[in-house]
């Protein structure tokens, strides 16, 4: 039956034996290195995968770190801004109060200097009035004194010398003003 189908039992046997021989030869010389290469390749790939995994982990860790750091920086920046704002407010308050004090001092000084000027002006005016009055009086005295009046004034002073127990009391010994 087999022969009708064209199958020769020997041929099959030879094929099997050949195959077995081939298999043994291949096993002896080729399979080892091939599997070795495959294994090596597999190891390499797994190594790469592991490395990739660890890099990913590292990246994630770094990302966390960066995020933390960013958050920290933001916090610090906020603190700094708040501190700066507070400082600015303090400075503003100080400047305002100083300006107020200075303006008050200026007003005070102005008032004082005005009062001084007023006193000075009054004193000057009084001096000028006194000077003018006496100048006028001097001219009147000068013009109105004739020889007789001069003599009377001088006699008056001479008469006053030695009175009041002293000769050295200026003016009190004589009062020529009465005859002016």
């Amino acid at each position: 039956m087999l022969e009708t189908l064209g199958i020769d039992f020997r041929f099959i046997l030879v094929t099997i034996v050949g195959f077995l021989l081939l298999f043994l030869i291949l096993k002896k010389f080729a399979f080892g290195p091939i599997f070795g290469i495959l294994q090596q390749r597999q190891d390499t790939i797994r190594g790469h995968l592991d490395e990739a995994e660890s890099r990913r982990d590292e990246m994630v860790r770094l990302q966390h770190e960066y995020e933390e750091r960013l958050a920290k920086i933001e916090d610090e920046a906020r603190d700094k801004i708040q501190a700066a704002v507070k400082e600015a407010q303090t400075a503003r308050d100080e400047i305002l109060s100083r300006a107020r004090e200075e303006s008050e001092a200026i007003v005070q000084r102005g008032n004082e200097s005005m009062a001084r000027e007023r006193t000075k002006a009054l004193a000057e005016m009084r001096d000028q009035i006194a000077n003018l009055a006496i100048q006028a009086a001097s001219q009147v005295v000068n013009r109105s004194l004739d020889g007789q009046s001069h003599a009377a004034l001088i006699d008056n002073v001479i008469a006053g010398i030695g009175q009041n127990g002293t000769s050295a009391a200026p003016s009190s010994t004589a009062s020529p003003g009465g005859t002016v």
Partner: protein
Amino acid sequence: MASGDLRAARRYSTALFRMAVNRNEVDEVAESLKTVTDVVTQSPELMTVLHHPRISRERKKQLLRQVFENRVRPDVEHFLILLVEKDRAEIIPNVARQFGILLDEHRRETDAEAITAVPLTDSQTEALRQKLQAATGYKVRLTARVDENILGGLIVRVGDRLIDGSSATQLQMMREQLRRAKVT
């Protein structure tokens, strides 16, 4: 002149004056000192020489003898030489001045000056002299001066005392009163 020099002048003149009083020769010594004052006033270079630190005492004494010998009494000349020996020649004018003060005190005399706006009459001058002599107890050598600036009245200066009865001063006092008047 330093006050120390003035004190020294007083000391020396007092010593000289006491000597004169003791010898009863005040007038004569005064006369000699007046000669010294006249010479020093007329030739100031004499004082410059007596001042000079580079000129020896011997030379200065010689000079003094040349100038004053037979012109002043020997005791006054010796007195001047003594001053040179003590390196005190520069106080000679002051010594003479101080001697004059002591002399006036001794004779009970004093200078007085009267200042008026118009000349004093003779009777006024005499009345003033009498009054001053009565008041001070000193014989008064009165000099009169006219100064129209005092306007009227009389100012008398006796020694270091002053009697101011001038109209100008009266007016000044009135002015001061006006200036002191309170203004509001």
